[in-house]
């Protein structure tokens, strides 16, 4: 079996070199299809999900950052409002003290001013000026500078213009000797008593930036973000990089800020994306402006980006691994099955197919196994049948050239010759020669019924000499039966049986009647004798073999039955009817097959 199969099956198409499948075949392989489609779908889903997540999260993060920033600014705004309120409270207190004081130059007022000054760190100076710009009273210990130009300073002019408290832009306090300080001035026209006279003057309180700086410093808007304060005119009140802006090294785009009191927007004027949040301090009209750098606010977004990239990469890798594994799980039993089937196809019927895997594949493998078993069975059967057939024919042929039969026949011929019965001798020899001729019939297994009937007639002729006319015979056949086909030598063993076991034992004159007819496409040949018949037991054993061993004629009958069965099917064969002392009828039934070629008519043949 392990020899090259090509030697055994030269006509089978030879498979090409293994493993060199065409690309298209590879692309159509289950595993690849599953892997690719699964991966594609999974990756697509992952990407879509990731994008949706990203968009959602990014939006939320942005909103949160924006909201957070607004809250921070709101808080600072609130604190700043409190601070401004505090400033105005101090201003009110100072005003009250000055107004209520009996005289502006009373020592009590000085003391109070001193207390007020020392109470707050961010107070720079308190002073009262006449509307003409002359110094009236102020924080103890301060002396005026020359050339202060105070009448042109904004706190002075605005105090004269409006009765309300006015807040100035940051400016240099140049009034008093000592330091030049950046201050915010609060000023208002007030009433005071001097020398018992009620006068009006301008109260000025200067605040430095200490508290505003502290408040603004709390603002943490990312690493680079910051908050600054604008006055209503667009002057920068406070900026963490105030000096840089004053020096012209930095620039703050305040115009869009000025238009709104309450706003959040995205600014790109500096080339960088920045979130700007504007809130307005109620009393002063100052605007607190939060600036956060977009790329810092969206750090979460970038983190998310990075995370999603890695996540996606991991998912894709996992998906690929899983899909390769999965497709391998599915495809490998199929491939194994395919290989096994291929082996079977190559002729190795004994290849066991034990593929485990998916249910369907297992079923397929089992069914295939069953089928294979059946094929093997059938093959065995065919082999057996072929062998039996050949053996049967050989047996029959052997029985034809039975030396015993030949000896008896020749003996009869000699006896006839001694008696000078030349005609009979001739008949006998002729019959014998034709008998053998048909027996051999050029090695053909199939002959016509005509030939078979001729054959049996010759045999009966010969036997009638042998039995010294102890029996008569008659052959009747329908015309249409004669050209039909039969396997050869089916009648002789039966007739032989009838002669030797039926008629020979019978005291009466024997009669052998052979009829052949066509019924419903079946050829029915009946061989009847009026011999001693058979018991039921003999009848039962005659076809099944076994029992009877006597002259071996049973073997001949069985041989016939078997050959008919092998050629035409098991449902055809011999049937026996027998009654003791009455005779036996053997019926042969097999399908009618017309000879495809009528060439094989035997020459010199005479019909009955």
């Amino acid at each position, binding site marked *: 079996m392990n020899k090259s199969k090509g030697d055994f099956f030269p006509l089978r198409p030879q498979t090409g070199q293994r493993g060199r499948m065409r690309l298209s075949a*590879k692309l159509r392989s289950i595993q*690849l299809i599953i892997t690719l489609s699964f991966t594609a779908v999974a990756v697509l889903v992952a*990407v879509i999900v990731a994008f949706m997540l990203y968009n959602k999260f990014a939006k939320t993060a942005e909103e949160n950052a924006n909201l957070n920033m607004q809250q921070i600014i709101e808080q600072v705004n609130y604190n700043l409002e409190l601070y401004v309120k505090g400033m105005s409270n101090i201003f009110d207190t100072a005003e009250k003290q000055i107004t209520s004081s009996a005289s502006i130059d009373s020592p009590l007022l000085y003391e109070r001013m001193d207390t007020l000054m020392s109470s707050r760190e961010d107070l720079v100076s308190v002073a009262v000026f006449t509307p003409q710009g002359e110094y009236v009273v102020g924080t103890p210990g301060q002396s005026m500078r020359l050339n202060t130009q105070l009448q042109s300073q904004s706190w002075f002019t605005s105090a004269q213009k409006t009765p309300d408290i006015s807040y100035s832009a940051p400016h240099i306090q140049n009034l008093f000797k000592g330091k030049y300080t950046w201050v915010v001035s609060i000023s208002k026209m007030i009433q005071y008593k001097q020398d018992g006279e009620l006068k009006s003057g301008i109260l000025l309180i200067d605040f430095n930036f200490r508290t505003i700086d502290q408040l603004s410093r709390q603002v943490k808007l990312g690493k680079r973000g910051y908050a600054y304060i604008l006055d209503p005119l667009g002057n920068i009140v406070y900026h963490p990089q105030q000096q840089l802006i004053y020096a012209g090294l930095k620039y703050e785009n305040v115009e869009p800020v000025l238009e709104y009191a309450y706003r959040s927007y995205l600014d790109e004027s500096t080339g960088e994306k920045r979130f700007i949040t504007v809130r307005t301090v109620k009393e002063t009209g100052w605007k607190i402006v939060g600036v956060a750098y977009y790329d810092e606010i969206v750090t979460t977004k970038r983190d998310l980006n990075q995370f999603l990239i890695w996540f996606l990469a991991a998912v894709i890798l996992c998906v690929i691994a899983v899909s390769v594994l999965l497709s391998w799980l599915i495809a490998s039993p199929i491939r194994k099955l395919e290989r096994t089937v291929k082996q079977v196809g190559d002729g190795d019927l004994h290849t066991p197919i034990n593929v485990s895997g998916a249910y369907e594949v297992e079923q397929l493998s089992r069914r295939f196994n069953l089928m294979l078993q059946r094929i093997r069975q059938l093959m065995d059967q065919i082999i057996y049948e072929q062998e039996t057939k050949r053996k049967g024919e050989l047996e029959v042929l052997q029985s034809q050239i039975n030396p015993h039969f030949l000896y008896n026949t020749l003996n009869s011929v000699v006896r006839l010759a001694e008696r000078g019965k030349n005609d009979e001798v001739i008949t006998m020899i002729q019959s014998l020669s034709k008998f053998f001729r048909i027996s051999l019939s050029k090695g053909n297994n199939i002959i016509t019924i005509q030939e078979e009937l001729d054959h049996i007639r010759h045999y009966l002729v010969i036997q009638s000499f042998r039995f010294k006319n102890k029996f008569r015979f008659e052959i009747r056949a329908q015309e249409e039966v004669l050209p039909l086909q039969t396997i050869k030598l089916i009648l002789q063993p039966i007739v032989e049986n009838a002669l030797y076991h039926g008629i020979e034992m019978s005291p009466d004159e024997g009669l052998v009647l052979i009829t052949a007819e066509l019924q419903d496409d079946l050829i029915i040949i009946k061989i009847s004798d009026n011999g001693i018949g058979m018991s039921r037991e003999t009848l039962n054993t005659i076809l099944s073999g076994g029992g009877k061993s006597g002259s071996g004629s049973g073997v001949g009958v069985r041989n016939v039955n078997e050959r008919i069965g092998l050629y035409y099917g098991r449902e055809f064969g011999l049937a026996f009817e027998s009654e003791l002392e009455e005779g036996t009828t053997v019926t042969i039934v097999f399908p009618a097959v017309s000879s495809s070629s009528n060439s094989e008519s035997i020459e010199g043949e005479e019909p009955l």
Partner: protein
Amino acid sequence: MKIIRLMLTLLMCGLVWLSVTSCFNTSPVYINTKNTRNIHMIVKMNKGDYWNTVKLGAEAAAKEFNVNLTFKAPDSESMIDEQVAMVEDSISQHADAIILAASSYMGLAQVVDQAAYSKIPVISVDAEVGSAKVRSYVGSNGYEAGQKSAERLITLLNGTGEIGILNFTSASLNGEHESGSIDYGARDADEREKGFLNYAARYPNIHVVQISYTTSSTAEAEDLTRQMLKNHPGLRGIATLNETASQGAGKVIQSMGLDNIIRMVAFDSSPSMLELLQNGTVQATVIQNPFSNGYLAVKYAVEAVQGMDVPERVDTGTKLIDLDNMLYPENQKLLFPFVK
């Protein structure tokens, strides 16, 4: 089969990667503030409001650009050798960049070349140095400043009178200034003087009767002023060309009660000078932009360290301030550093 499958997989991974990453845009390039840089700033001297303001600016920039700023200065502007030693120190400490306000144009040239040889970029601030290796100069135009000073002083004197100049320099290494063929003076001092003299030369009735050079102490400046006033009783105008000289001369004029007799145009904007200006002792002062100088010097130093292109020359400008315009908001911002 395996190879094809691998290739397809890789291809797909690549495509997915591309599609994913293409959606995330990259941020623009800024000055990289992730790495701390060691920048050494060496100025002319360690006192005086002017240099303090320069330092303030430098510190603001240092904070902004994540710079570890080392600020060094000798005690006096004339200590050239010490300044040279400081630069050498910085070179041996492998500073990332050196910012130098050279007390001597030629005196520090060699050491600057050395720094450049050690691949340390040098930015000069305020005063130039005689080396071609300097990456950038941040400061004002001394010549222009001198001219502004002369113009105002001559206007104040109505075009006639004797003028004394109080300049600063460290040229007196060998006691003489103008005789040596090598210019050992500070570049800015020379330029201002040149600017002043060139402008004054247009007026035939203006006579620059004396030019004195102070090193860097107010006391010396005061002495020099007194000497000058003694030597030239007809002196009507004094121009001082740096902060210490201005302070010294201002003090003398104030204490001698010469406010109304001597017109003075000072230099730089120390608070005491502004007091004198407001009092009327000094009629005008030429100011520079020390804060910007310090800030920009550090900024360009960082950029130079990063290999970015820096401008060769940055003129931060000069301005003439008098009593009238000193309270203009924009001048307030220049004159008074915003200290919280």
